[in-house]
């Protein structure tokens, strides 16, 4: 259950940082829903500390709805900040040791 909680974290699903503003969250969700509808390869999976997870329109909707609720957002922020570094996505196995967090955090748009 805990693993699910980490992997299904709305911030991971949407690929935005826990500092994202409400409007950024909405904009990202709208973009992802459009990309999923048109079958964009890039939108089909998202990196999490447990590796890549498939992204569905339902998951995106649930994520944005959760972040609209102040209490649920607080819990999600807490989990996202405590979560181990993200694995999968752009990271290569060699880079996983030291580089992965930075690479994937960048892929997620969490750091420049």
């Amino acid at each position, binding site marked *: *259950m*805990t693993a699910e*909680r980490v992997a299904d974290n709305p911030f991971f699903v949407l690929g935005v940082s826990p500092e994202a503003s409400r409007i950024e969250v909405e904009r990202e969700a*709208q973009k992802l829903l*459009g990309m999923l509808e048109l079958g964009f390869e890039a939108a089909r999976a998202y990196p999490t500390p447990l590796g890549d997870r498939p992204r569905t329109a*339902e998951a995106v909707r649930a994520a944005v709805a959760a972040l*609209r609720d102040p209490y649920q957002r607080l*819990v999600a922020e807490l*989990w996202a900040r405590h979560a181990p570094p993200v694995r999968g996505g752009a990271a290569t196995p060699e880079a996983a040791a030291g580089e992965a967090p930075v690479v994937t955090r960048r892929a997620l748009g969490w750091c420049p």
Partner: protein
Amino acid sequence: MADPNPPVTPLYVGIDLGTTNSAAAVFDGERVSVVRNAQSATVTPSVVRLDKQGRITVGTRARRFLEQDPSNTAAEFKRLMGTGQGIAFPAAGTTKKPEELSAEVLKALRQDIFDQLGVNIERAVISVPALFELPQSAATSEAARLAGFARVELLQEPIASALAAGWRADGDGAGSWLVFDLGGGTFDASLLETRDGLLRVVGHDGDNFLGGRDFDWAITEHLAAQLSVVPRRNEPGHAGALRALRLAAEDAKIELSRNERAQVTLANPLRIDDQDVEVDLELDRATVERLCAPFVDRALDVSLRLLATHGLGAGKLAKVVLVGGPTVMPMVRARVAARLDAALAEGHDPMTLVAQGAALYAATAGLDGRAHATAAPTGRQIWLQYPAVSSDLTPHVVGKFIGANPPTKIRFARADGGWTSGDASVAPDGTFLTSVTLLPRRACTFAIEATGADGKRVETSPPALTIVQGLTIGDPPLSRTLGVALANGMVQTYLERGAPLPARRTFTHYTVETIAKGSEGSVLRIPIVQGELSQANLCRLVGTLDIGGDAVTDTVPVGAAVEVTIELDRGGRLSARALVPLIGQVFEHVAHLLVPDASPEALEIAMRDLRRQLAELRTDAFRRGLASVIEKLDHVEGRLAEAEKDIDAAHGGDADAAQRARRALLDVDGTMADADLSRKWPQLEDSARNTAISASSTVGMHGTDAERSLLQEVLAAMEKARRDKDAPELERQMRLASRLSTAAFNRTSEAWEWYFADASSEIGKARDLPKANALVAEGKAAVERGDTTELRRVVKGLWALLPEDSEARKKGFDSGVRS
């Protein structure tokens, strides 16, 4: 002649299919206008008449026949939607279903739109009450299909009202809003919040049995009591006289909204018990207000309860939006403003606000109402994804060119010439992603300009797109938790209350009995329930998915996997599917999606049963001196007395009253379950304390940092629920704490050894003893080796072989599956 270049601006249509009146509105991206009917009125009575030639009349003209020819004129059929109950039209010698009658009203509105705008409408948003049950929503969709709509979305009425009221609000309008919707037969209170141009539904509450009709009946009974022969509701022979009196009462009530006095005079005497009874009475505003005030107070009690649930009190609201005919009464407006201590939103038409909001929502959902031309598209086809309405000033536009060799560049030019996007590159697979800039609170059209690899301009289809900037609403939330009842009497939750729609969820269950191929009697039942409690018998059964022996291609043994998927569309329409991988078959026919029939006899039996339970609970509550429980039970007493009156009227042939009574009894049943839970409060509090202690120590020892932080949150929520004496919430938080604790515990090796010992001690009851014995042997070996993964597999295998308790299964609506 058809225009070869039809305008690209979409037209969004909203329909309020009401119990008493219906209305339609259209939104063109800039302005919302209410559609007028042939009589130039903005509302059309939801009344349908069938004459002896089978000709259909709808609206004001049909309403005139309600008094003269009531047996061939139907009104208030919306309340019977989803019941499967037919409405007879003896003159035409036919019976119509409620959805067929609703379809006639929809057809009339569709025709009005055509007459006024010359546009044939195929898609629309139709509003439904917030507390509509799933079968009623399904019947509404069916009515739209019968009326010739290709696609409709359903929207909850309070969201529609708030959207319409918020759209016109000046300034940012931030804060909490209450929509107070007192309709003909139902009352809905909804709490909303607007922030950053996004409207969010915080919560709603309501009373399905409270509305303007209660006002009318109270006035009717007051008038009836003054006649020389008093007509009674439980006497079928008096129905005609009461109907005539009620229509007169309704007219008098409307007149008293403007004047101090009204005369109630009928042209023809009433015929009661073979006597002619003259009606010539006077009614004054003060009397009507005195008669109606208790109903308004009941609505206000519900509203304050909703505010309290969300930590708000009177005086904390930014605005109150009034919706529905009865809210026109000055007394209602004054009482609401005074008790809620809030400003009323002015300048809205309470009769058409819902239709206007539905039209605005159609834009949010991108549901263009126009029938699309089938002419071959000219230019390179693009699939586009963009929000039709956006609160964001710079939304994304995502697109894909169809076919090989797409253009290489694309840009968007706003029609006012004030802004053009830079060139966005198109990927070799035809996809592109860019954003556009909108003007605040305006509809913006953008021309699409694509360029090929040769640098030449490429025509596209569509050639342009339109986005409206303004208030938007998040996906509508599910009003009640939806799940599947299991054989152990518990519920597997699929979609939690508040989940955004559309939503879909799949879980794998396992059969607890064999489905024998070819055997008609062998049916595996998957009950679908709605409700907030974890015990199935405290939830409402809304449908069942049956897998019958006559349908399976091969026998399905005990323990076979069944993947159940439950799906709800934006309007809350339910579909369910069960896949049995073993035989590769899918079952998706959801049966019994009907509101059950309510025969007066069955209602009386239920009433007697509830009275008995009530007496028991009351005695017990008095003995223990539980004041809060006694208060709850007093409320139940009042509801039962009302339901009794309705059952009386049901004996007189009033099918609508029978449905009201049925739902009142269901409600009472729910309240009593609640009261029962409060009665068990001391035990619950005890077990909450134990849960907190054991979760703290388990999570403290074996949990991760995140689990520990989360447990702190859960413990705080448990403490709050305990202080508020909120039993269902405390139960829910306890479940969360137990889940956290279980997750931490399962990470240890002792956990599985303990589960194994527990399961092994019960193998005498296993369905397949040899298999269970083999598993126990494998488990022992795994314990010696310290192989937790293997032990986990063994334990799960053992659990699958142990039977469910038959008592529990009955409570689970005879469910044939377990988790």
